[in-house]
């Protein structure tokens, strides 16, 4: 049985259903948010084998604390907040959030495979071919987990600085500053790779 979200406030409707014991409504919440959670977990957690436990942990926290959700933000934003905090906590425990991590790339990192560009993005494909995407992917992996996540949320998920600030708990100015540094580092890394290729 699927839960219809055709409602004026689908977040509130789903939350109320879950609070009344409807677990299928929680499955709908998972389906609605798992893509965003995956984007964050993949950017922040280098070890593939830890991601499964973490995503389970994240959604159990969401379920257990749903009663405290006050609808002051979108449900997806609140879930992203829990995802971010859970991942940060994991990185701290694993000591992967040490200063200087920005410039290190772990050998254990499970780099996401770059697939061929989809047909709809033909113009993008012309500008940025598969090889360049691989270089960009590698450059992304060299960023710190936090910088990588901010770049993903801003450029891929098209979130505003304010929204990212809410999720990460960072002031808007800090989000802007981190993003500026991350973009600069990415650009420099890419240029360096192109120069190496040209030589």
């Amino acid at each position, binding site marked *: 049985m699927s839960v219809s979200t055709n409602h004026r406030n689908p977040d509130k409707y789903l939350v109320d259903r879950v609070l009344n014991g409807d*677990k299928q409504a929680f499955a709908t919440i998972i*389906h609605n948010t798992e893509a965003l959670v*995956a984007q964050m977990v993949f950017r922040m957690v280098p070890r593939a084998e830890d991601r499964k436990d973490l*995503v389970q942990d994240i959604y159990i926290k969401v379920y257990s604390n749903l009663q405290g959700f006050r609808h002051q933000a979108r449900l997806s934003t609140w879930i992203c907040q829990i995802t971010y905090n859970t991942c940060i906590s994991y990185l701290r425990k694993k000591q992967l959030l040490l200063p200087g991590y920005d410039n290190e790339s772990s050998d254990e990192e499970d780099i996401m495979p770059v697939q061929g560009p989809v047909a709809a993005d033909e113009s*993008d494909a012309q500008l*940025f071919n598969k090889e360049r*995407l691989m270089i*960009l992917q590698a450059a992304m992996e060299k960023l710190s987990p936090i910088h990588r996540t901010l770049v993903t949320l801003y450029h*891929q998920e098209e979130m505003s600085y304010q929204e990212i600030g809410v999720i990460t708990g960072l002031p808007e100015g800090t989000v802007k500053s981190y993003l500026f540094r991350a973009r600069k580092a990415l650009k420099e890394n*890419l240029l360096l790779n192109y120069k190496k290729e040209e030589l």
Partner: protein
Amino acid sequence: MISQHISEEDIQLYVLDASKVKEEVAQHLEQCPACKARVKEYEMLFTGIGSLPKASFDFDVAALVLPQLPEKKKASSYKIAGITIAVIAAAGLISLPFILLQFRVNELWENISPWLIGLAAVMAVAFIGISLWEMYERYRQQIRKLNFE
């Protein structure tokens, strides 16, 4: 027009939203090949990030999570009714002496020793303090659960 090259920050801002940079910056960018090339680099970068494949889990998240969910303690209407009755009973108990003494409050205070009033006040303050501390501890536990700390 600005004669110096544009800062990295303004280049990024221009690529993200050209309307947000100063007019002099935009003018310089139109005429400076070096800065134009830097704009192109960022445009390529942003296009590239947008084209990166999105991450997705290779397992069914709902199927993994649903069996692990703890059983919810239902906030039943009985509980709400119980709290309401308790509040009314407490209010009744507190007001009972005043009702019995037909609101002769002034006389009541005169007959009670100041030491007893002091003791009652200290106990009330201690009770409120302990209750507030417990509430704060419960809040902290909740926050810790969410890893907001």
